[in-house]
Structure formats: C-alpha cells, structure tokens
C-alpha cells in the first residue's frame, strides 16, 4: 500500500470537480438533525441557565445577581415559589437567600442557603448558576464568604431531556454518514462508472483505494462528530471522547468498505441501509427508551460506540466506567480490519 497514492485519490475526490453528494450529506445531516431536535425539544436558543431567586428582607443581592451576565435571574415572591418554578422546569436552579444573609456575610459568619436543583437540568447549567451566586456573594462580602449549600433535588435526579437522550442518535448519524456511507458510496460509484478499473490498471493497488476512501470517511466522521458534540454542548473529557469517536469512525469506515466491496450499485446500497440500518442505530433507541431490557443493546456492535459516547458526553464519566466498552470497541475495530485485507483483491475482480 502506498500512502502517496492514497493521498492522490483523496485529493482527487475532494478537489476534482463535482463531488459525491454523500460528502455534502455527511457534513449537513448531523447539523440538520441537531437543529431540528434542539428546536423541537431543546434549549438551543436559550443558552443561559435560569436561576429562580427569593431573597428575604431588603433584597440587596438580587439586583447584583441580575447584573451578572452568566445567568438569567427570575426573582420570586416567596421561598415556595422558588421550588415550584424549578419543579415546573421553568428554572434550572432555585435559591433561597435568607433575610439575614447580608448581615452574616458582613460579620463573616457561616450561612446556609437552600438550593433547589432541577433533576433534568444540565450539569453545566447547575454549575454556572451556582458559580454566579458565589461570585455575587463574594462581591457583597468584605471577607471570603462562608456558605453551605443545602441542595434539594426537584424531580427525577438522573432524568435527561429528550435532546440529550437523542444525542447518541445524532452522533450515530454523523458517524454513519461520514464513516460508513462515504467509503461505501465512493467505492460503489467508482465501480458503477468503471473508473475503478481504470485506477486498478495503474500502479494503484486495491488497498490504496480502500485506504483512501476509508481515511476520507473516518476523518470526516471524526471531524463532524466532534463538531456535533460541540454544537450540542456535550464536549466533555475531550481526550476520551476523541478516542471513542476515532475508534467508532474507523469501525464504521471498515464496515463501509466491506459494504462497498460487496454491494454492486447505489440503489442496492440504499435498499440495504433501509433494511439493516436498525442494527446500526438500535443501541440509540435503548438510550431513548431506558425501560427496555438494556442487555439487548449489548448485542449490537454499535452499542460499544454509542454507549461510551453517551456516558462521557452527558454524564462526564471516565474510563473507569466505560473502559470495558471502549476496549470492546477497540477490539471490534481491529477485528474488522482483517476482512479488508482479505477482500481487497475482490475489488478488482468485480
């Protein structure tokens, strides 16, 4: 295999006139899906977390909080109303500031604040809201404020928003279009147009072609996948996420190449995807429907990509909890490389 020749094939694909429509689809579809899901279910247009606040007494702190640009402050008339607003998911976090808080801060005394946290609020929103509160109190106090937060969760703690639950589906779409469909459709298009024969009677070897389209698909899948996670504000633990995204993208590219070797035309490729696409997307459904028996999800190979992405990006979990899944993903990626070598000769004989 020659890296130089593979690079020439990639360059021709990207720069040689009209491009394969799948390239555009791979770039556009994940963002389109994200946009639709965020518009319907999400908080795309509402970036700032909402903080419900009740302050007893002369209300010296609320105006300062309102000047803090990091949160949207919703003042309430009573402590009970704070809880109600958070329960109704109209605010991510609620806080009750006692009437004697300003005095305690001035006297450098310990103060305890009741904080209501919406179970479905994003971790990022909670952190931003509480940081804004601490920052404001620090401005009000001549000393380092001594504060305890008495946290009370409102609603189901581990519950997620629909847009978060659909994130694995979007990531799978990203990796599927980039990693799987690009190598498969490129190979099939070369065969349909007979240009593959023209390539394979030059010093270009079948493995060069496979490497070129596999690399193109996997790279695009990783890039768009990372952008999708950023776009969805779920870019947590970058090194681990990049590792999982890379392994998943390579795995999809390998499967795309095998499909491209066996499937003879584009119509058959799309027909097969309609029939068998569920085997790729299946594990994403098990995340959307947590009441389904989760062990079934583990029967799907893409589970070992989707699940770690979900746990890392949404729950900020690390290798200690998803390590075994990532290891299985790595093993699948390595094993799927073998058929590529064995089948490469078949490219020329079809």
């Amino acid at each position, binding site marked *: 295999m020659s890296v130089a*020749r593979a690079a*020439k094939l990639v360059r*021709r694909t990207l720069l*040689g*006139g*009209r491009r394969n429509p799948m390239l555009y689809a791979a770039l556009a579809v994940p963002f389109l899906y994200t946009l639709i899901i965020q518009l319907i279910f999400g908080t795309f247009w509402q970036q700032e977390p909402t903080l419900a606040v009740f302050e007893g007494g002369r209300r010296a702190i609320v105006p300062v909080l309102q000047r803090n640009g990091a949160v949207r402050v919703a003042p309430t008339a009573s402590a009970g109303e704070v809880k109600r607003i958070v329960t109704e998911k109209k605010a991510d976090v609620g806080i009750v500031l006692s009437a004697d808080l300003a005095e305690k801060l001035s006297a450098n005394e310990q103060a305890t604040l009741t904080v209501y946290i919406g179970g479905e609020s994003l971790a990022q929103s909670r952190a931003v809201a509480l940081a804004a509160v601490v920052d404001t109190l620090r401005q009000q106090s001549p000393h380092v404020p001594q504060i305890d937060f008495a946290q009370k969760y409102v609603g189901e703690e581990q519950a997620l928003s629909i847009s978060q639950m659909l994130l694995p589906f979007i990531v799978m779409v990203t990796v599927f279009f980039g990693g799987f469909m690009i190598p498969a459709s490129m190979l099939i298009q070369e065969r349909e*147009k*007979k*240009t593959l*024969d*023209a*390539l*394979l*009677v*030059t*010093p*270009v*070897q079948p493995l060069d072609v496979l490497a070129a389209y596999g690399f193109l698909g996997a790279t695009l899948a990783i890039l768009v996948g990372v952008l999708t996670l950023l776009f969805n504000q779920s870019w947590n633990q970058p090194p681990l996420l990049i590792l999982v995204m890379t392994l998943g993208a390579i795995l999809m590219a390998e499967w795309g190449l095998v499909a491209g070797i066996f499937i003879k035309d584009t119509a058959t490729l799309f027909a097969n995807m309609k029939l068998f696409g569920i085997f790729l997307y299946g594990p994403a459904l098990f995340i959307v429907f947590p009441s389904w028996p989760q062990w079934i999800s583990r029967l799907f190979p893409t589970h070992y990509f989707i699940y770690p992405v979900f746990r890392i990006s949404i729950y900020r979990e690390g290798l200690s909890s998803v390590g075994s899944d990532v290891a299985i993903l790595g093993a699948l990626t390595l094993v799927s490389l073998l058929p590529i070598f064995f089948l490469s*000769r078949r490219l*020329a*004989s079809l």
Partner: protein
Amino acid sequence: MDHSVVAKDIAYSYTEHRAVDDISFHIDEGEVLGLLGPNGAGKTTTLKMLIGLLLPQAGSISILDMDMAHDREKIQSLIGVCFEEKNLYDEMSAAANLNFFASLFGSKHIDADRLLEKMGLPPDRKDNVANFSKGMKQRLMIARALVNHPRVLFLDEPTDGLDPVSAETIRRVITEEKELGATVFLTTHDMMEADRLSDRVGFMNEGKIVALDTPDNLKHQYGKRVLKVRYRSGEKITERELSLEDPQTGSEVDRILAQHDVRDMHTEEATLEDVFIHFTGRKLEE
C-alpha cells in the same frame, strides 16, 4: 525476438461458464496482436487477466519478463490500457484527467496539451469530459493510456462505434506507437481493422484461440479466393462465384464467356471473415 507478453495455459471461469479455456500465446516486442471473436468469446476476460484485473485460475502470465502473480504493480507501471467502456472522470477536464492518471504513475508533470493534440483534441479545452462526444472521449481514453509512455498497450475495442475521423485518428496513433517500439494487444470486432493494424491475428471462440497467425498466412491457408462473374442469362442477371483453387474454374469461365453476355468479372481476395467462418461456422456478428 523477445516476447513482451507470454500467456501460458491461462483459464478463467465465471461460476458455470468457462470464459477462457487454457489458452497460450505470446506477443513479440514491438508487435501488434489483434484478437478477434464474437461477443462472449472470452476476449475481454483474456484482456482483464493480461492487465491484472483478474487473476487467472490456471496458468501464468508474464509481461516484460515479469510474472503477473508477483510483480503486478511493476507491470502496471509499464503498461497502458484503454477500455471498451468509457471510464473517465466526467466531472474533470481532459487535461485534469490526464494529469491525475500521470500522477498515479509518479509523473509530476506531463505535457497534457501535446497528448491531447496528438489525439486530435483541443488542448486548451477547460470544460468537463461529460460534455465530450463519444469519439472525443474514446480519443481521450487512448491519450490516458499513453500518459506513462507504456511499453505494452492493451486496447479493448478501441474504435467500436466511432465516427470515421475518430477511428482513423486512433488507428494512426496505434501505428505510431508500434513504430516507437510499443507492443500492442488489440481486441476488436472489426476484421478490416485487425487486418490493417495487426502483425498477427488470433481468433477466439468459446474461450479458445482457434487460429493464430499473420493475416496473410491465415487468409492464404483458410480463406477462399474467388472469381465473381455476373452475366445476362435470358432476361435475368446471374451472379456466380468460382473458386480460384478449383482446376475446373478455367474451363467454366471459358464456357460462360462463350455462351453468355458477361457484364463484369473480378477476383476477390480471401478475408479474415472467411477465416473466422472456416473455424467457427458462423459470422462474427452472429
């Protein structure tokens, strides 16, 4: 003389159908070998094995003293191939197609304009190949086959279905390449073309090479030279073919001349078509 191409007992089957059935032949350096045969005779399968797209299921192929099974990449850097089907990158210009394929052979720069001019194509054309006529595409495919200055050229039906100008340009280039020392393997349906361009001609039928020799030898050995006579016989015109190999022909001609009003009389040389019919019992088009 050195053999540029040697095929020894090669065979290839598609499931039940034996497309190429243990054939052997060689092509000398600088020689043009034409392979003739009807559709499905096994010509294209033979060509695909020679250019490394198919691995022979039996036998061996050697090109420029290298074994195709082991030195495929080296061999492919020294050959040029023109396919029957138009397989250019339609979304690129002619020069971009040539430059891209030249780069695959490791050439950093080729004189694409000179190649295009040689093929009778406008050198400064920027539009995509998709807008080219069939004849222009075919000429560009020949140009593409020449980007690496190949020592062996493989041409699959290079003039099939082309206008006379394009066909003639391609025939001229084949002759020029031969004069420059290239070895040429040519498959064609066109007997006249094979006769004109080939040093030797092979006839292929049902996966086997049934005859292989120079066109003259084949025609002499298997063709029939005839005398065609048209004469008035009563109210109608009669046409007769008399074999020049038949010792009775002389006396028969004398009789016709004496008894009839002869309108015209001429000899007709044997053709490769006759040779093909001799071996297969059918015409090439059937």
